[in-house]
């Protein structure tokens, strides 16, 4: 009776968690780029 929507649940949470971690990584990378940029 209760439909099995587990797959969609995993998809939904994965998207959000990947997004959050992805943004965090982008911050890390951008910070690193600033620290290690070669200046003329």
């Amino acid at each position, binding site marked *: 009776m209760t*439909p099995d*929507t587990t797959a969609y*649940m995993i998809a*939904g949470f994965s*998207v*959000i968690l990947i997004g959050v971690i992805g943004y965090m990584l982008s*911050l890390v990378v951008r910070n690193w780029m600033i620290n290690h940029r070669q*200046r003329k």
Partner: protein
Amino acid sequence: MDSITKKPFPRALLVLDILAAVSLAVALWMALVYAPRELVMGDVQRVFYFHVASAWTGMLGYLLAVITSIAFLRTGKMNLDVASLAGIEIGLVFTALCVISGSIWARPIWNTWWTWDPRLTTAFIMELIYAAYLLLRRGVEDPAQRARLSAVYAIIGFITVPLTFLSIRIFRTIHPVIFGGEASVGSSNFVMSSQMLQAFLFSLFAFTLLFAAFYWHRLRLGLRQQQIEAIELQRRQDEEEE
């Protein structure tokens, strides 16, 4: 030569990061395990906790961006420009997560990837508005002008949102879209038990901490980028004068 003073990593930020990570993990457990399974929709309903929390975080970002944009126009302090950009960037990310997760949630329940739900549709339009904001920034070279023009646009974008929502709402009321046999009015037509409510509220709390951490980090990043840009501009000016 690197003449930018690297500010030491503040302890408070480290504490905030850890708190945010921990509460996010707890919220995840509460959403996946602690909260009971909803009978009509099944497990996919659990996405709702993080879906709404993402929307909340996105709105926090946009709201902060509008406030700092107004403050910038009144004071001219360039720090506020960084604050606006940070808010909009975070807003874009989390609103996108909200829209995508909303679509995933809708698929098994209403058998369609997109319901013309006024809230989700408005969120999508907000994405377009603030993507345009980022593009606008890219098109202006002078930092002061860029800050001013993008602040004005951020404000305009924000104030049209209620009207956008209203217009879609009226449209849907007059022309209801029928999915799977029943009119789709909103995304959350289920009753929350107390455990669900706790999971929901804690998700909001966890995401708020997450927002604070991200925002603080993004501010630091933006301020340093601003410093570098100012230095490079000065350097270019000095070279031109020679």
